[in-house]
């Protein structure tokens, strides 16, 4: 029969005798556990941030851009030659079964004025579909309607950043602002979205009906044209099919023969972001794995010290055996010692990991998330390390010959 509480007491006493040594041995585990927790917190934080950004853009999104123009043999960027029309966006919405909604975009930068305040911001001409495509709600007022689009009325929706800069804390709904000197009535205010994955302020925006933008604000040499459109597929699985349907439809409408290149580009925004998320996940695993190595090294430190301890205490082991300690009494004593070292080190390591994570969030401004899972994982792992690396020294101790051990000087 093994007396566990007494064995624990014996182990604690043995560890207290060599305080400095026990502390240094624990340090390996403290650093290991701390590193695992901090690294996983950084990785989880980064992933969380990316998922937030994905959902802030809107889910299941495709972007269709106008093609590139060629001027004197120099190819310009996509969108430089307006090839998409409002008709195209309506056709896609009508004819592509996997598409849920389409929002055309024609925009530019404009100076806006309210009272004696002014602000330079992006003004986007679009349709009410924009709100459903981007999963965007209004925080006050109402959206403009299809009738506003048909009639090219002078109404607008403001992002929160614009409201902050022009109105302060006043409710802007119903006020009249001037965009490029043309008066627009504020119909509603968009909910706060925060930063885009590219780091842009998504709230620094004004939406106006697309027709108004075409006729009054950004009237170009290509009437009726738009710069791009945002397309929402019905489900994530439909994204790929939508891409094909849109490309097919546009080639048909633009009368592009099979040998010619497309005069438009379809981009799958969600997929790009998901790829980023995937790579962040890999990074998290990698960071965790590297941190685990230091935990493993800490475990080897425990084994090292336990082996020294067994040798130093050979005589003590001999005495214990002489008065009746059995194989497992001796083994358990040393395993428990190793376990206590690793568990205390594990608890201290959790605290260090939390502190480091906090410090990273505070001073480096990283988003860190300490998940309970990572705490349980690293604490459990440190316990396993203790038992695993404590077993060999304990096994060695239990095999000593009591006669030899008693004679050991």
């Amino acid at each position, binding site marked *: 029969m093994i007396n566990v509480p007494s064995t624990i007491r014996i182990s604690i006493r043995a560890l207290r005798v060599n305080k400095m040594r026990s502390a240094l041995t624990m340090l390996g585990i403290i650093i290991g556990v701390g590193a695992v927790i901090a690294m996983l917190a950084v990785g989880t934080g980064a992933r969380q941030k990316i998922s937030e950004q994905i959902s802030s853009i809107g889910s299941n999104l495709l972007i269709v851009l106008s093609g590139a123009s060629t001027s004197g043999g120099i190819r310009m960027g996509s969108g430089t030659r307006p090839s998409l029309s409002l008709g195209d966006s309506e056709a896609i919405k009508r004819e592509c079964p996997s598409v849920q909604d389409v929002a055309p975009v024609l925009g530019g930068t404009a100076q806006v004025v309210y009272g004696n305040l002014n602000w330079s911001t992006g003004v986007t001409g679009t349709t009410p579909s924009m709100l459903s495509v981007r999963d965007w709600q209004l925080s006050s007022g109402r959206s403009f309607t299809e009738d506003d689009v048909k009639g090219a009325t002078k109404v607008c929706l403001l992002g929160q950043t614009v409201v902050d800069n022009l109105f302060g804390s006043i409710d802007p709904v119903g006020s009249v602002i001037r965009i490029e000197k043309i008066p627009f009535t504020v119909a509603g205010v968009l909910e706060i979205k925060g930063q885009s994955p590219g780091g842009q302020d998504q709230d620094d925006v004004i939406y106006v009906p697309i027709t108004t933008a075409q006729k009054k604000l950004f009237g170009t040499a290509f009437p009726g044209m738009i710069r791009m459109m945002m397309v929402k597929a019905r489900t994530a699985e439909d994204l790929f099919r939508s891409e094909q349907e849109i490309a097919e439809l546009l080639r048909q409408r633009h009368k592009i023969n099979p040998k010619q290149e497309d005069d438009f580009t379809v981009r799958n925004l969600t997929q790009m972001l998901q790829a980023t998320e995937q790579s962040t996940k890999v990074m998290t695993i990698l960071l965790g794995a590297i941190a685990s190595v230091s935990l493993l090294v800490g475990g080897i430190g425990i084994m090292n010290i336990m082996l020294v301890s067994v040798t130093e205490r050979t005589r003590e082991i001999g005495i*214990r055996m*002489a*008065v*009746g300690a*059995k*194989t497992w009494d001796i083994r358990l004593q040393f395993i428990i010692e190793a376990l206590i070292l690793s568990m205390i080190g594990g608890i201290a390591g959790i605290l260090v990991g939390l502190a480091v994570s906090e410090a990273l969030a505070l001073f480096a401004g990283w988003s860190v998330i300490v998940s309970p899972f990572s705490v349980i994982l690293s604490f459990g792992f440190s316990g396993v390390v203790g038992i695993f690396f404590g077993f060999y020294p304990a096994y060695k101790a239990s095999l000593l010959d009591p*006669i030899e051990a*008693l004679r050991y000087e």
Partner: protein
Amino acid sequence: MGLIEARGISKTYSLGEVDVRALCPTSLTIEAAEFIAIMGPSGSGKSTLMNILGCLDKPSSGTYLLDSVEAGGLDRDQRAEIRNKKIGFVFQGFNLLSRTSAIENVELPLLYDGLSAQERRQRALTALKKVGLEGREYHHPNQLSGGQQQRVAIARALVNNAPIILADEPTGNLDTKTSAEIMDLFVDLNTHAKITIILVTHEPDIAAYSKRIIRFLDGCIVSDEVKKTE
């Protein structure tokens, strides 16, 4: 049948290719409550015999019956249990755990016997009282004199009510006066508590306290005299 019944036990160590005989086939009967001194020069086999009798070692041949149990063929853990229950050891170098109080040293055998903490404490206190160490229970070995340390060791041998005490040169590290006190304690334990005491010693003065003297030379018993009671 005696308490200890050794029939033709021998011990041979193999050092590489050479076999060294440490103990000739030896037969020995020891009754309960005997007080025996084993004498002989170093390397004469007396320590080997003590190790076998104390179940720290196995004989190479022969049978060893301890309290009618064949102890020669037991495995490590079974021998540990016999040492725990039936044998108390007293060593020349005391072999106490340093940095551990007297009472906890005495409790040590009980720790491996599954007794409750309260009972352990109680029995250890009683044993320390028996060896005259009342009031020193919480001293550490380095705060005790040699004689007192040996008394702690004797209390440790007594605490499990073992019928046999094996003492290997128990006075080897002590001065004459203290040696006499320790030997008086053994005599007392033998006479009053009827504990069988087997003592290894070089010194005839110490052996004189016993009732029977067995002499060893080159691994064999050369004489076995029972002292006539006056």
